[in-house]
């Protein structure tokens, strides 16, 4: 690659509330290539691209475009530099036509010059095979055509760089193939394409170069030549070790105690639930967790993890099937009822959902138990009891906070998570559902939290751990399951599992 780089990111670091989203990441892009960024959810792919497109400002590092150092303060800046982003969730105005959406924010002068725009659109459409009726309203378009419009919107602004965030997540296989054809046409025309994905097959099939990210860091960069030397199986295995790291399969973790014969604490019987788009996000999920068991369910897709967690905790309606907790059918019970029965749910979205940042710690401790004595009687809160309880949590769980009346906003990410766990574990629940409990935390806090979960299970609590972190899966769980495309595709004892087996199941690579 002797050509001059189009974009060059060096040493990019970005932190959010104590979570390191990007740590010293380098990334470059040349004209006429498709460069994939591969990594599990939360690995920092999207953050990196949001820095490039001006949505976020890096804490450290430099950005060079056409070998000129630049500062990209807003998406407008990045558009001016010829960098266009196609987000996972579209940003079109649904009740405007395609052509109106394309010209939006791009009007020269006061009057719309749609005629000129039409000519330009036709030229672009013909060049890349992206045909679309310019007068259709966006809301009447299929998902594929909306995405096509998003791409046209970027091209309409004469961008050289096109960044696509998980573009195939909502497309069928055939639609995905036609998208890749378009991307190849763009490459031919000398444009540079960045493909953000967690789908390994897709990254291998479509791209010239793959950058692999893990926990906010760049784990590896593989060029086409490097990959070409390997067959497909060897290539995917190599990438897997980069994505998940090499983990000792036996040893470090605690031995799972066998508590068999008991009735399971919680049991799902052919449970189905719909996701936010109304599709069946969980299909025929059946499993049980016994007393003192930790079932780790690995899923690469964040939305699927969340759906399963909320289905059990009650925020999501169960479309069909049955949920049994301690021999009681709780399929139709509300969140509060399930909480009162002893189901504790630790969300993965600790900042936006697990707490109220602008309230103090004391008020946050009763977020779910405000209706129970001693925190309230006859609907009247007992501030004294709440405060002393909060002070106890702070002390027992080593939460670094000024006191019960400190706002949650003043805490670091790790301490917020400790606090949420402390709250969730405080009244000895029968079942703990926790989603990605250690995501983005430092090693010491990670160890502390894993220890907490293991101790809790030793007291007889059933734990459901949802995670994409294979390391965590092996170091905590007694049983391991894999959720892929809404189905449980594997369920085994930890002793029977190997890293490779789990990773392949997570990514949907069938062994043949």
């Amino acid at each position, binding site marked *: 690659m002797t050509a001059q780089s189009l974009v060059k990111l060096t040493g990019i670091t970005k932190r959010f509330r104590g979570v390191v989203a990007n740590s010293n990441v380098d990334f470059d892009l040349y004209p006429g290539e498709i460069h994939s960024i591969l990594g599990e959810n939360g690995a920092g792919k999207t953050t990196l691209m949001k820095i490039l497109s001006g949505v976020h400002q890096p804490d450290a590092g430099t950005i060079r475009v056409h070998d000129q150092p630049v500062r990209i303060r807003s998406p407008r800046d990045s558009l001016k530099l010829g960098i266009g982003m196609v987000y996972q969730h579209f940003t079109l105005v649904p009740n405007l036509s395609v052509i109106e959406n394309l010209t939006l924010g791009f009007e020269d002068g006061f009057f719309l010059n749609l005629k000129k725009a039409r000519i330009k659109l036709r030229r672009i459409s013909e060049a890349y095979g992206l045909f679309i009726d310019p007068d259709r309203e966006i809301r009447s378009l299929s998902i594929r055509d909306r995405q096509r419009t998003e791409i046209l919107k970027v091209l309409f602004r004469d961008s050289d760089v096109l960044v696509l965030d998980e573009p195939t997540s909502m497309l069928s296989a055939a639609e995905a193939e036609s998208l890749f054809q378009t991307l190849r046409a763009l490459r031919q025309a000398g444009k540079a394409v960045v493909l953000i994905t967690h789908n390994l097959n897709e990254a291998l099939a479509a791209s010239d170069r793959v950058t692999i990210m893990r926990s906010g860091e760049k784990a590896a960069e593989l060029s086409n030549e490097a990959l070409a030397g390997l067959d497909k199986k060897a290539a995917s295995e190599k990438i897997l070790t980069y994505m998940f790291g090499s983990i000792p399969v036996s040893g470090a973790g605690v031995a799972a105690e066998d508590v068999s014969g008991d009735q399971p604490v919680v049991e799902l019987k052919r449970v189905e639930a719909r996701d936010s788009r109304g599709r069946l996000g969980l299909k025929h999920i059946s499993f049980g967790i016994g007393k003192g068991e930790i079932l780790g369910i690995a899923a690469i897709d964040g939305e699927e993890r969340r759906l399963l967690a909320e289905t059990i905790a*009650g*925020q999501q309606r169960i479309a069909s099937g049955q949920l049994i907790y301690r021999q009681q059918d709780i399929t139709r019970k*509300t*969140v*509060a009822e*399930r*909480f009162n029965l002893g189901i504790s*749910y630790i*969300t993965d*979205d600790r900042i*936006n*959902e*697990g*707490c*109220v*940042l*602008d*309230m103090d710690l004391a*008020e946050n401790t*009763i*977020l*779910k138990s*405000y*209706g129970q004595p001693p925190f*309230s009687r006859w*609907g*009247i*809160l007992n*501030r004294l009891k709440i405060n002393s309880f909060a002070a106890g949590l702070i002390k027992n769980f080593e939460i670094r906070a000024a006191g019960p009346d400190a706002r949650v906003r003043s805490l670091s990410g790790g301490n917020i998570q400790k606090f949420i766990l402390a709250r969730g574990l405080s009244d000895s629940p029968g079942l703990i559902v926790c989603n990605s409990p250690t995501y983005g935390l430092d090693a010491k806090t990670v160890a502390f939290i894993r220890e907490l979960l293991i101790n809790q299970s030793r007291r007889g609590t059933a734990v459901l751990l949802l995670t994409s972190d294979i390391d965590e899966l092996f170091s905590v769980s007694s049983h391991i399951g894999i959720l892929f495309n809404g189905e449980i595709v594997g369920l085994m004892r930890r002793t029977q599992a190997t890293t490779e087996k789990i990773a392949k199941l997570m990514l949907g690579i069938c062994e043949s």
Partner: protein
Amino acid sequence: MTDLTSVAKADLKPAILSIFSICCSLIAGGIILLVIGKNPVVYFGLLLARGLGSSLGVTESIIKMAPLLIISAGLLPCFSAGLWNIGAEGQFLVGAMLAGWAAPLLAARLPCPLYLAAVALLGIAGGMAWILLPAMLKARYDINEIITTLMMSWVAISLVTWLVKGPINDLSTVPAQTTLIPLKYRMPMIPCTRIHIGLIIGLAGLIGMHWLIRRTTVGYQFRVMAANKNAARHAGMNIARLTVYSLLISGGLAGLAGVSDVLAIKGLFQGNWNPQYAMAAIPLVFLARLNGWAVIPLAFFFSVLGVGGEFVARELGVPVFFVHVLEGLTLLFFAVSEYFEKKWEHQ
């Protein structure tokens, strides 16, 4: 000791901001007066003299506080829940209309305390009914309550005007109005004063709501809902039900304010009568930063403006609406001061 001073500082800061914005609005109002050729010093001098300078003025101002306090009491829980009932005016009118219609009918038939309670409940029910539709639309379909409550106000204005010209019109009088309530069936006075017990209701309501928001589980849920809806959903709070509750409280109290004004002062309901207390109560509650105690002095200040403004209008020829201009300006400056406060906090 340091604790005490820091608490005092925390409490003082919002007060300073509110006072600052009031001063700014008075200055800006003065400039407007200069532009239209009136002497601001004379205007404000007269306004304060009429509203505060005599026992008559002070009493009038205190009487005028009652509807402001009652409406504000209702707005507190609803604003604290992050819901914006902008249509308290309509709920007020429906409550007032019902009181004007029902009071003469019930007065002679029920023992006095029961009669007062019945009219009050009817007014509360009327105000609640008037906000029920916006509340349901918000709870069920997340339709913006700012728009719907405001629209319902316009419907209320037309509805009560029509009712008072037709179905509930007292045909024995020339103007479109309900039957005059005899003096002995009016709302009782606070002993030894000319001030009716609406003031007590308003104060009690205000302090009660202040307490409800901060010390009860319902109020807690309102606050969580306002601060972080996702957290409320995650914790299993019933957001739809909370939305309806908080809006109903606010509609009911606005209706009660209407009852109190008709039963205590007007003695009847007239077609073209619309004192627009809600338009003063909304900025009031904002200025008080949703603190019930702070509403009280601010309500007094707004009343002084209102009472003084009416007198001065006659003497100087400055329209009565000018007081609304001042109220609006206060809110504007309050918004500006809040913006700067946030900016300073970030630095």
